[in-house]
């Protein structure tokens, strides 16, 4: 337990000390939040009610999809994972500690958004804080799992960028952050429901903000949790402490398996 606490403390500090991590954990999400709060609420007043959940979802995507895979690949390339293995650091700790430290960073970001959204942008706050927190946890779990799986399966940081963007960009456009999910139909709607962001927005809006939902919000939470579970199971299965290790073969395309639980939304 002591070792886990030390490991967590190190990972949390790294999120503040490492420039790249500090940018994706704090600078990008907060800069985007203030920009969207100023511009989008002015251009499209209908955006204001969803400002808080949309910016929390965006912050989670920044921190997890941009912040988790790269350091994992770099740790493998720099021999850090090898050093962990030699010194008895369990694989489970290596994979789960980034989730816990990112979660704390996200709670800080969520707190900043919740404190400022009302007075600065006149945005409504969640009426159900527990549901808000639960959705934040589920979304962080799902996206951190996806980020971890991308890091484990990517042979280089070039792949992490490609795979992360393959989830991040569609989520920005179709995840209900900028445009309500109800505006999509046909194939676009189906694609949108395959993304974790859509389910997080659905759950946030329905359970904590009191808006209508396009899908059972509890089903969305269940699918987010299932996706996280699939991702972490696969990441553990394909975990490799260096790329020369031939015992565990994998392919970056396997990342798509993490999205399988969202097929449930098409039923």
């Amino acid at each position, binding site marked *: 337990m*002591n*070792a886990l606490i*030390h*490991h967590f403390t*190190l990972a949390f*500090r*790294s999120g503040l*000390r*490492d420039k790249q991590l500090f940018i994706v954990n704090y600078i990008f999400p907060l800069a985007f939040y203030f920009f969207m709060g100023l511009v989008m609420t002015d251009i499209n007043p209908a955006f204001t009610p969803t400002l808080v959940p949309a910016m929390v979802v965006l912050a989670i995507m920044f921190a997890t999809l941009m912040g988790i895979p790269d350091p994992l690949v770099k*740790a493998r390339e*720099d*021999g*850090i994972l*090898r*050093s962990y*293995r*030699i*010194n*008895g*650091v369990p694989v489970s700790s290596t994979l789960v500690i980034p989730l816990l430290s990112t979660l704390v960073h996200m709670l800080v970001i969520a707190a900043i958004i919740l404190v400022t959204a009302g007075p600065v942008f006149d945005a409504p706050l969640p009426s159900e804080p527990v549901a808000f927190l639960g959705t934040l946890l589920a979304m962080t779990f799902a996206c951190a799992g996806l980020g971890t799986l991308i890091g484990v399966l990517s042979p280089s940081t070039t792949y992490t960028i490609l795979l992360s963007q393959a989830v991040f960009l569609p989520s920005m456009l179709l995840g209900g952050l900028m445009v309500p999910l109800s505006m999509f139909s046909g194939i676009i709607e189906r694609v949108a429901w395959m993304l974790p962001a859509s389910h997080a927005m659905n759950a946030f809006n329905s359970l904590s903000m009191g808006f209508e939902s396009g899908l059972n919000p509890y089903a969305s939470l269940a699918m987010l949790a299932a996706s996280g579970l699939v991702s972490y199971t696969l990441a553990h299965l394909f975990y490799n*402490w260096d790329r*020369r*290790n*031939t*015992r565990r073969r994998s392919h970056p395309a396997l990342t798509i398996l993490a999205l399988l639980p969202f097929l449930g939304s098409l039923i």
Partner: protein
Amino acid sequence: MKSAMIEVNEFSKTYGSFRAVDGISFAVQKGEIFGLLGPNGAGKTTTLECLEGLRMADGGTLRVAGVDPGRDTNRLRSVIGVQLQSSGLPETITPLEAMRFFCTYHKVAPRYDLLERLGLGQKEKARFAELSTGQQRRLALALAVAHEPEVLFLDEPTAGLDVASRAELHAILNEQQARGTTILLATHDMAEAEELADRIAILLHGRIAATGTPMEITATGASLTKVSVRTQQNLFNGHADHMPGVQQFDRIDDYGIFFSTDIEATIGAILSAIQTEDDTLIDLRVERPSLEDRFLEITTNGGQQ
């Protein structure tokens, strides 16, 4: 009788169709420093990685302090210490944090005194990326020995170090040896192996091309022994390759340099000539072929002795 702390018996390892290590055997006794030498791709790192439990052997048996590295990795962690060739630490970690982190996982009290001892006291709160190469190497060594392992694996421990840091690291390794730690050292640095290792094995194409003490290995080669002589009257200022055992003769400054295959006969003839010519000997130096000479000889001959 000393017990073998590292036993390698008919060990082999293959990557695809490439046979990295081909049935090698050696044993390292308790408290011994054993050097593993060889050019790149000879199989040194593969051997180390299998002994460290990082990779599985394809054939043969391996034992480290009685532990099978391929099976009992948990027990192995407590008996081995490894100084890796690559950094192996996150850029933002400080030496103080790294010591606490690894010691906690080894379930021992952090050895902050080692940081002081290794000259990292002033840098204990600096980030790893801000440390010099020498400081990073010393930190890696401090972390490797903090849990007082029975067996220490070192992969190119002094690569990139300046002379002072290198001497300091050698002193620490000698201290470790004095307290009974068995050390397996993989290196390209012949002078380092000659200075530190009790015994060495030269690996070539995955096989052991030569093994023994540095003295034994250098003695078995076909290389010539160099005898440098200086006399009062510059007796050896012309050709002197007619002397017994001498294959080649050179003059450098006031010295006559003899390269001999029969050192006893050559020195006898030199002293006799000095006496006969009523000259006075000022300086006489005998230099056996170095380990580097012998290594080059072995690698050039493709492992043929």
